[in-house]
């Protein structure tokens, strides 16, 4: 699994059978310091709650389809969780420290959410 930022949504009316009702989001993969790394990918949202601007983690390859309600769907990237915080451990041997809390999103969401979203209660990760 890897960290990623949701940077957009994909709308597709014609899809292969099995993908109906699956929300597709554009992800920018991040390194563990939350710096963008590599190319953007389209991922299925297996938690049904991720939206533009959010920090998430995703699973790739065959395991992505396992996250979907129908396991036999052509999905190769799936969001499997929303990140509240990446908590660096005290004796990080490399000396490099990941931010203890999620920094505000650098880029504004690329597209507005298609429906009103209920804000989640965050227990931590916000100043």
């Amino acid at each position, binding site marked *: 699994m890897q960290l990623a930022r949701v940077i957009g949504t994909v709308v597709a009316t014609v899809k292969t059978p099995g993908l109906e009702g699956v929300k597709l989001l554009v992800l920018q993969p991040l390194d563990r310091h939350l710096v963008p790394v590599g190319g953007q990918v389209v991922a299925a949202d297996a938690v049904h709650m991720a939206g533009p601007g959010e920090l998430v983690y995703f699973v790739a*390859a065959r395991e992505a389809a396992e996250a979907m309600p129908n396991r036999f769907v052509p999905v190769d990237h799936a969001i499997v969780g*929303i990140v509240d915080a990446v908590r660096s451990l005290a004796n990080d041997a490399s000396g490099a420290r990941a931010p203890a809390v999620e920094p505000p999103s650098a880029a504004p969401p690329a597209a507005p959410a298609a429906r009103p979203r209920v804000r989640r209660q965050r227990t*931590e990760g916000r100043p």
Partner: protein
Amino acid sequence: MKLARVVATVVSTISAPDLDGRTLLVCDLLDPSGTPSGGYLIAIDAVGAGAGETVLLLDEGNSARQVLGAPGAPIRTVVVGIVDEVTGAGTTS
């Protein structure tokens, strides 16, 4: 399998049901000498690995699900061991 060092944890309250209650560890990948080789993976902890420890990562889905006893879970990377030392080409790290 891959060598890695545990550097952080991911706190997540909203996740796929199969991941509920599992510890997510951010692991920097290492070369055999113990130097970070650049990449990282978020892995599920199966052995109780802690901060700064060098660990063995399993990065294959079927084996990962078997280790965790979680058939059908969207899991690919699991921490399956804590490394005491790596010896090779006359060097020990």
